[in-house]
């Protein structure tokens, strides 16, 4: 029945020799080198695990956040490893692996934090404040849940645009995970900007590899290898150079994150 169909999925990946992976255009979760080669914490972990599963390579395609889950559902990708943080609603839409990359939320603001933001609630309180976030991302939802009205949450297509919009004063804050913001700051090297991290009241989130509902067998196989790597320390070796904490990922579980309210 379903079980054998699921096994078939892994068999199929083995046969074709690669898995199709959706990644985001967001360092350090992903990085694209000048020669077009994809690296970064998320794809590196995925590549290693698939290798262990007998799938030699991954073919990564950069995708908009908004296009990832529909792409997964439509069978465009076999897995999404893009810093899609686990949340109850998402857990209902896709099948997550155990946690991989964990990060807290941060905000990018002008030097000196002129409006004094510490949390998303602060933005909600200031009737003239605007915050930028990726469309369909965790930060957008956090801001909305904190009471920032829809028209003050600006959907920004990518990190570089968000940074630029803060520099140009189009938005007061741009919110992304801490490491993403730090990477942006490093590249921009702009003394007029400042990072607020972590955002108060925002939980630490962890992403996992997201599979299509129905591919649970593949996901389970993935989990087994992930657990082995976590134990052996290889997991930490891959992600820590990018700034991620392996400990954070190992101190929580999918079940906890998916149940959180």
């Amino acid at each position, binding site marked *: 029945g379903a079980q054998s169909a699921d096994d078939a999925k892994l068999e199929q990946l083995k046969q074709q020799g690669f898995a199709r992976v959706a990644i985001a255009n967001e360092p350090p979760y992903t990085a694209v080198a000048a020669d077009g080669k994809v690296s970064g914490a998320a794809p590196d972990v995925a590549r290693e695990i698939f290798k262990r599963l007998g799938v030699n390579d991954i073919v990564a395609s950069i995708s908009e*956040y*908004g296009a990832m889950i529909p792409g997964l559902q439509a069978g465009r990708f076999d897995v999404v490893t893009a810093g899609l943080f686990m949340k109850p609603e*998402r857990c209902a839409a896709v099948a997550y692996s155990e946690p991989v990359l964990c990060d807290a939320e941060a905000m990018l603001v002008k030097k000196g934090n002129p409006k004094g933001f510490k949390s998303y609630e602060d933005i909600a309180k200031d009737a003239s404040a605007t915050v930028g976030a990726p469309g*369909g991302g965790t930060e957008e939802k956090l801001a909305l849940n904190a009471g920032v009205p*829809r028209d003050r949450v*600006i*959907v920004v297509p990518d990190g570089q645009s968000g940074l630029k919009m803060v520099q*140009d004063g189009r938005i007061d804050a741009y919110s992304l995970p801490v490491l993403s913001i730090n990477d942006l700051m490093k590249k921009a090297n702009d003394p007029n900007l400042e990072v607020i991290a972590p955002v108060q009241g925002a939980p630490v989130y962890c992403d996992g590899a997201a599979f299509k509902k129905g591919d649970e067998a593949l996901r389970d196989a993935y989990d087994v290898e992930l657990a082995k790597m976590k134990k052996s320390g290889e997991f930490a070796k891959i992600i820590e150079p990018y700034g991620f904490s392996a400990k954070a990922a190992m101190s929580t579980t999918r079940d906890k994150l998916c149940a959180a309210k």
Partner: protein
Amino acid sequence: MAWDWDFVREIMPTLIQGVKITILATILGSILAAIVGLGIALARRSENRFVSRSVGWFAEFIRGTPLLVQLYFIFYVLPDIGILLPPLVAGVIGLGLHYGTYTAEVYRAGIDNVPRGQWEAAKACNLNGRHTWTHIILPQAIPPMIPALANYFIAMFKETPLLSAITVLELMNQAKSVANTYYRYIEPMTLVGAFFLVISLCSVVLLRWLEHRYGRIER
């Protein structure tokens, strides 16, 4: 993934917010395109070679490159030289400039379609340049171009989803946003498609009427 009418009802108000912005951007963009187009058309007829040539190349360049990239450029690059435009304004300028290069061609065709005999008759009547334009040429040139102009304004309407790239919350952007919130894509995207289809079908009727009223002109 089955179609869910309750979900449709739930997201309708949000999408209608987007429709309003879409229509506003189209109207403002059309007005700007109509003005920019006339400006380009007149500049290209200028006696001054430098003016006509450089405006000509500029228009060619705008017409040969994607609006999407132009919008990025206006929104993200212009601030570097101190021009900081709100998203909707940047979007309207992008639309107006881009489609202005199209309407310029319409103006040009409209003006060229006025028979040479009319210019000559105006000269034989000893009218000066300004009188010739305002009393003889433009009154004959503009009515036949109205259908072609309207055609471009409708095309512009269908390109407004590009504005989502520069954070304008028009229909497409709203649809994406609700889709991402609920992880349901078919309903919002289909509604967007249906909405565009309805508006275009109405505009076909409008166009037929305009063509009937003002005569045909080939694109």
